[in-house]
């Protein structure tokens, strides 16, 4: 059964320790891991103590993933992944843009953010260099990839072109 992720909220991987505070300005629909977000637990990187489950209920949706691969496997829509870093200006610029895109395309794509400093192995796996880098995953594989900040309209256009062509 596919796990349905609420599209008004953006799960983000940004902490190996449980002390990340959600920025009020972006928390309206961007969930900051782990305090009040769908918890994405990485079981393989040694960041988690197995004796301490870190699953939280968020609003009305309970979402649990044991790894990024698990998230990809359990999402029935294509996934837009934003690889970012805290002090990357354009990445922060994209936060409200991603909220808007997530809301406008809620039935078409799932938006996820990954903090490359907290999850460097995932960033290494996909050879991330410049930030922000966006990868659209379809059927668990990278499908389209682009770097840099863009407006909500530009991003939506890119997503729709990509998904249309591939379908």
């Amino acid at each position: 059964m596919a796990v349905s992720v609420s599209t008004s909220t953006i799960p983000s991987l940004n902490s190996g320790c449980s002390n990340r505070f959600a920025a009020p300005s972006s928390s309206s629909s961007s969930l900051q891991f782990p305090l009040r977000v769908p918890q994405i637990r990485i079981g393989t990187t040694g960041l988690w103590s197995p004796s301490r489950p870190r699953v939280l209920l968020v609003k009305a949706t309970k979402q649990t993933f044991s790894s990024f691969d698990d998230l990809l496997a359990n999402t029935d829509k294509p996934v837009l992944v934003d690889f970012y870093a805290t002090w990357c200006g354009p990445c922060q610029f994209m936060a409200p843009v991603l909220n808007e895109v997530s809301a406008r395309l809620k039935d078409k794509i799932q938006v996820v953010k990954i903090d490359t400093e907290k999850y460097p192995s995932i960033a290494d796996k996909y050879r991330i260099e410049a930030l922000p880098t966006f990868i659209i995953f379809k059927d668990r594989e990278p499908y389209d990839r682009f770097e840099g900040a863009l407006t909500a309209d530009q991003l939506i256009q890119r997503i729709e072109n990509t998904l249309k062509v591939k379908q």
Partner: protein
Amino acid sequence: MTLQAQASSSFAVGIPSLTSPLGGSSHRLVVRAKVEPSDKSVEIMRKFSEQYARKSGTYFCVDKGVTSVVIKGLADHKDSLGAPLCPCRHYDDKPAEAGQGFWNCPCVPMRERKECHCMLFLTPDNDFAGKEQAISLEEIKESTANM
């Protein structure tokens, strides 16, 4: 002492908060977001950014929040690595990169081609370029207060 959870979300009380000040009267669980760069480094990178923008004929982003975040990112790397490594990149080995220098601000792409993907130094033709080459410490603090 009681911990009050917000109504709209549930805090799992069992989660350890490494920096939360638990004690005294009842209050919301507050957790510090991240380490901030030192004021001294922020000031150094702020001055550098203003000077370099003037020198290179480039301008800050219309959204000064972007400028502020990058300046803090540069300051953060200056604190941790001794050099202002570009904060808009993912690295395998940050200390090695800082020692090597290609991505130390002003990075080689900026010096050679005025390419700044951090959107810190923007050529006038760039859609995001504003008209300013100055930014105050207050602006930086206000823009990044919510982070």
